[in-house]
């Protein structure tokens, strides 16, 4: 009997001392464990697409910041309180729309990619060096673009490269001193100009996936970003050079903003998908494929349950659009305005509600025209700036070559069809009074560009930042304050104006 006991004890002990850890090893299927990621070239691409997808989550914030806080939009009666308080500059860092979490989630994902993709690279796979570098540069561009937007919206940003894997890593960044908008501009210019990766390179998706796949539409255009940064940095020559390079030198950009058929059939389709000819107009855009489970928070703002929209176009904006002088016997800025952007009657925004897959442009040709004109204006090239703004470079084509001031040989012959922003939508030109001084002309053209931007880029998330940029340029907060206050009821105008004379109030808190 003793033997039996002994044997049984041995059996029990065997159970006790073997394999405890193996017994407890389970696969975590609630997500992909980190040691299973970044194993293959496909993993690298998949993670990068995840970052593209994350950009979808911030577009509505950019639009709300720029349009609801400017003179363009106002909350409807049924808008949630978060939107009401944003519209009234009653800012609260706990407001879920104001919270910058989604922006920083892009940053964390970018940092995670940049760190882990490097380690993948060492293992070697079928992805070529060029393709790999293009992935890295794509992610860097998104990171810089995101920081740029954080800076514009919040006035400050916490810059870090850590992927924040675990809680201990949070401590590394909580004590950072945030960079101000002014500090961020040269910092990002330096990052982009001196990047170890060629930031103009793009992934060859057709080689990676198949002939029909190309995600470069979502890729941030490095030059467009850099041009914008130089413009904010008041380095107008550099900005003008870059915009000229993009518009003039690239083969794939429809620089001309031309064609009768354009505004009649295609203009509104900028915001839907499938028209490859018009895709050229968008250098970078964000698209929501709702059938594939992508929540379009941008569309939701304008098309709500039970037909109740959260945001409406302000009366001030409608008046501005209707008061434009048409050359086509229409009501004001008809083609860009009520035909494309909004309804006059119920003041609903319709730009994003045409199609099942609405697009939100991040950079598009018309914006580059405006920014190029802005830079040229600051350089004193008023005629060039006005040509881009009014009826286009085509007016300077004499049948064989361009006339002054476009006769320096740097203008591609394609410009001979270019209509200009106003000409394209059949609006009358803005004409300078020759009696004005150069300074007065410069200021006036800047104001025209601001207004043209409001009309052209309506509700695309560009309005307030333009007002900020110009106000900073002239060191005159009243430029922004007056414009924003114009949509408020008379009793509130002075309150809002005096509030916005304080620059800090322009930005969202966090």
């Amino acid at each position, binding site marked *: 009997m003793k033997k039996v006991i002994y044997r049984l*004890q041995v059996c029990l002990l065997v159970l006790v001392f073997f394999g405890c*850890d193996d017994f407890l090893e389970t696969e*975590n299927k609630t997500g992909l464990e*980190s040691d299973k990621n970044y194993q293959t070239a496909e993993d690298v691409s998949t993670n990068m697409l995840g970052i*593209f997808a994350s950009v979808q989550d911030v577009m509505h914030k950019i639009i709300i910041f720029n349009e609801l806080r400017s003179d363009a939009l106002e909350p409807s009666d049924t808008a949630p309180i978060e939107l*009401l308080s944003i519209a009234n500059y009653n800012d609260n860092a706990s407001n879920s729309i104001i919270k910058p979490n989604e922006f920083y989630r892009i940053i964390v994902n970018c940092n995670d990619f940049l760190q882990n993709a490097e380690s993948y690279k060492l293992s070697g796979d079928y992805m070529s060096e060029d393709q790999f570098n293009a992935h890295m540069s794509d992610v860097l561009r998104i990171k810089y673009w995101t920081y740029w937007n954080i800076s514009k919206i919040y006035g400050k940003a916490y810059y870090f490269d850590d992927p924040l894997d675990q809680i201990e890593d949070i401590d590394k960044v909580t004590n950072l001193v945030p960079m101000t908008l002014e500090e961020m501009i040269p910092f990002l210019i330096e990052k982009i100009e001196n990047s170890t990766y060629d930031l103009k390179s793009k992934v060859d998706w057709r080689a990676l996936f198949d002939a029909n796949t190309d995600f470069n539409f979502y890729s941030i255009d490095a030059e467009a970003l850099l041009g914008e940064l130089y413009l904010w940095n008041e380095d107008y020559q550099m900005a003008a050079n870059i915009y000229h390079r993009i518009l003039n030198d690239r083969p794939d950009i429809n620089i001309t903003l031309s064609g009768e058929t354009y505004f009649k059939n295609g203009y509104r389709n900028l915001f839907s998908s499938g028209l490859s000819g018009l895709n050229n107009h968008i250098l970078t855009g964000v698209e929501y*494929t709702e*059938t*594939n489970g992508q929540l379009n928070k941008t569309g939701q703002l304008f098309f709500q349950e039970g037909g109740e929209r959260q945001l409406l176009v302000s009366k001030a904006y409608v008046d501005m659009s209707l008061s434009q002088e048409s050359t086509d016997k229409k009501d004001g800025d008809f083609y860009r305005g009520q035909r494309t952007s909004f309804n006059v009657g119920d003041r609903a925004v319709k730009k994003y509600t045409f199609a099942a897959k609405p697009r939100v442009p991040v950079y598009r040709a018309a914006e580059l025209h405006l920014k190029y004109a802005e830079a040229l204006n600051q350089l004193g090239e008023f005629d060039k700036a006005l040509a881009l703004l009014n009826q286009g470079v085509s007016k300077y084509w004499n049948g064989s070559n361009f006339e002054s001031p476009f006769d320096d040989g740097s203008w591609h012959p394609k410009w001979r069809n270019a209509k200009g922003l106003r000409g394209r939508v059949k609006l009358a030109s803005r004409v300078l009074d020759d009696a004005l001084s150069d300074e007065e002309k410069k200021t006036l053209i800047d104001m025209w560009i601001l207004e043209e931007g409001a009309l052209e880029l309506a509700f695309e998330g560009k309005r307030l930042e333009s007002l900020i940029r110009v106000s900073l340029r002239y060191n005159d907060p009243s430029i922004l304050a007056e414009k924003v206050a114009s949509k408020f009821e008379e009793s509130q105008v002075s309150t809002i104006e005096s509030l916005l004379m304080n620059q800090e109030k322009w930005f969202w808190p966090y």
Partner: protein
Amino acid sequence: MNSKINFLFILIVLIFIADLEAQNVRAIKILDAEKQLPVANAIIKTDSGLEVKSNKDGFVELDVNDVATIYIRKEGFKNLEIKTFNGIKPTYFLFSEDVNQMKDKFGAVWSSVKETDIDHSDLSFDINSRGKIAGVLIQQHSGMPGEGTEITIRGNNSLSLSNKPLLVVDGQIYQNDGYESPVFEGFYNNPYNLVNTHDIESVTFLKGSAAAMYGSLGSNGAILISTKRANELKTRIKVSSWQGISDIDHKIPLLNNEQWINKSLEVLQTDLTINEIYSAYPSLFNNPDNVGFHQYKYNTNWQDEIFRLAISQNYSAQVSGGDEVAKYYLGIGYNNNDGIVSNTNFTRYSTRFNTDVNISKDFKVKVNLGVNYNDGQLIDSGINNNNPIYAALFKSPILQPKKVNFEGEELPDYDPYHIFNVSNPLAILNDNESKYVGYSLLGNFDLSYQINDNFWVNGSIGHTSWKDEQHSFISGVTSNAIVPTYIYNNYANNQVKHFVAKNSSLHAEAKLGYNKSFHHANLNVVFGTRYLSNKYETIYSYGMNTSSDKFITLNQTNPNDFRDISSDFYERRLFSNYLTFDYMIKNKYNLSATINYEQNNGHASSISGGYLYGNLGASYDVGAEPWFSSNAFLDILRFRMDYGRSGNSRLHAGLTDKLYQPKNFSNVTGLVRKNIYNSNIDNEITSTFTFGVDLISDRETIALTIDAWRSTTKNLIVYNQTDNFIGFDGVYLNDAEMSATGIDLALNTKFNISKFNFAFGGNISNRMNKVTELGDNDMLVTSFNGGQKIIREGSSGYHFYGLKTEGVFIDADEATASNLINDSGYRYQAGDMKFTDITEDGIINDEDFVEIGDPTPDFFGGFYGRISYGNLSLNAQFSYVSGGDVYNFTRTLLEGQTSTVNQNRSVLRAWTNYGDVTDVPRVSYGDPALNNAFSDRWIEDGSYISLTDITLAYELPIKSNTLKRSKVFLKGRNIWTSTSYLGYSPEFNYNGNSLLQGVDYSKMPVPRSVIIGVEIEL
């Protein structure tokens, strides 16, 4: 602390003191405990070889020299064994065989309650246990048949993890965390109905450190179910049946057609001119000349249309028997419960087969198998266009269920949802498909071998699995009777939802035991090892807009509209080695301990090593002292003390690793980071100290048991919000600590006056909780649908957190004088709510939030009374909860006066004119003033006392060789409730989550029922 040491010291000293032994002839009287009559002819044996019988007066004289043990036997009574070292009493009471003795009910060392008196007239044991066990709060989730209860033992010890007690069936751990259905909003599956009440022998509730032997699964206490086995060789057959009807306790008073029209006009006039209203809502100006007059001429109380008298029925049969080698028990059951909302139903088919095989004298095998099949028809709860209860409350009374043509003739289709935008509740109940199917299987195989007189081994292996499948089709595209749901920029005119949850677990255990009886003591030691693996998996699919309501499957949904598939999977594993030790000296000193070294995966994967859990308990029974025996009327006067350390490892696997998750992009899928993970996340650790006293009298006329306990939970997991620039909202940290003290008291008495037997008793429990540490946070605010809750350091846990009100502004002067605006700039006017501006900044916003209610009850329990006369007995059981606050979410909609949904009759006292003093503010379309914001206006006292059970039973006096017993009974359940709560029922529990405790989204109310039944034993 000093008192604890002193007690232990005395205990140890006492163990070594020799007792004096009695040495003489003693007269003993033997009485029947219940009838108090002498028991004649009882056989009295001693271990010295004497054998005598009691005389007709129950007397016997016995020479107790050299006698250590006296055995008393009498047919029909339980055997009695007397150790002479405990002294010899002048009188001994015998208890008849079928009496459940209090002595066996309460644990000798640990705080535990063993219920053997299981009521058979319900699906699961939990519903009828309400109010019966001190320290155990059992509340029905709702009146939805099959949904069951939420059980908490001594309150919640966790803020983020499961607070459910561990469920153990025949020694096998059953994972019962349950799930919240994504198909039927608010539906929570009931793990307790996996065993038919007829098949249950006993249910033991382990409180505090008693459950610490289960290590990281034990911090919430444990419920041990023992199923029935054959205890005799003779074949026994029992058949029983009951039939019941149920009904809603009361309906909510709503506006009638005229009142509703007036109220709706008032509301609409705050937004539109009367002409605009006339053109948009012509039905509000209905008169016989209108074309659509007949559609809007009714006065319907929609509650009458959906609630019904519901019928339930149960049939079950059990057979047991066998021979010397093998015994078996077979139980089958059929249970069909209709819900009080039309077309809701839950049916269970259950079978259980337990066998005991003696392969040899020393080698025994047990095989247990339980199989259930459930199906049912359920409904949605919550804020949902498909919730029939909300639809019935909100739908305009001027409409009626069926479509009516212009001539006033009723058509077969259901009336559409109209401009008032409320679904037709009858279309929800009749046009939709809402199916539930569940299977469960519990099987285990248990071998024991007695090696010699002292050593034994036991091995068991068991498998449990269950699978629930839910399918719902929400119609609407054809009938237009259900309001489309807006989701992901799509209108879902009809919807298909499908959900599957699967759980399977493997439990293996091996034990080596050692028993030894010494002269005055008994020693039991068990060394065991246990392995548990539990896999849980869910799959949910969703689609919308099939081309017609005839097409109800997922593949028929529109591929161009939003579709969703989501799933979850995790596996919990646990491996532990334990040693239990139980040492009893002279029936009075009892020392018991468990040491459990456990490894589990409920923590970050970077943490290695295991956990040391266990308990230590000691008790001293003064009643067993010989010097106490001669005069005492007390049988047991026991002092208990125990300490235990257990854990909670029921972490979701998503928190333990750095993870990536898919994110859809264009027509492909990308990967993004899922979390910032906590590489230190660990088991929560709860330690409990209990001091208890049990007092049981000789005849058990009085049984009092009191536990005073204190528990501390460290490593408490809380969700910490991170800085906004971290990118993720927050992380889970083991950052908090909580301590609680409580008292559980139970008193049972019984006595008889002539031929009437009476029994009265009750229990009361409380828990005083304090969050002693909250990490770096001063407070944590968490939102739920409709409001938010706060935890502060030093507070008792989750409290409601919102605005405070001071009535309604009587007139413009008062409103102007307050000079208040809300967050959106609205200036408060006469008739608006007067919120307290805590910050005194003139703006009412979230900075003015204060704690406005505590959902945790102050105390709870139950009491009972029983009278029996001959074969007739009447039994009443009450349960009560005192002091828990409830957020009546439904009332926020029924008293909101912001749209045309029907309202509670209380809105008739709403503010209308200057000078009105009332608690209900003015009407206002869309509520720009935010009068209906989350405030103390919606917080109500959830206290109640309910007659949960009243039963009149009659044992038929027919007895023969074949018929052993037969009984008929009439039972009322929840037939009386006293509460000041304004909702349907103060007894509800949304989903067991601490955050939603006390939040009433109006699930199906708990009904009152009458049941009639019969039981026959052959």
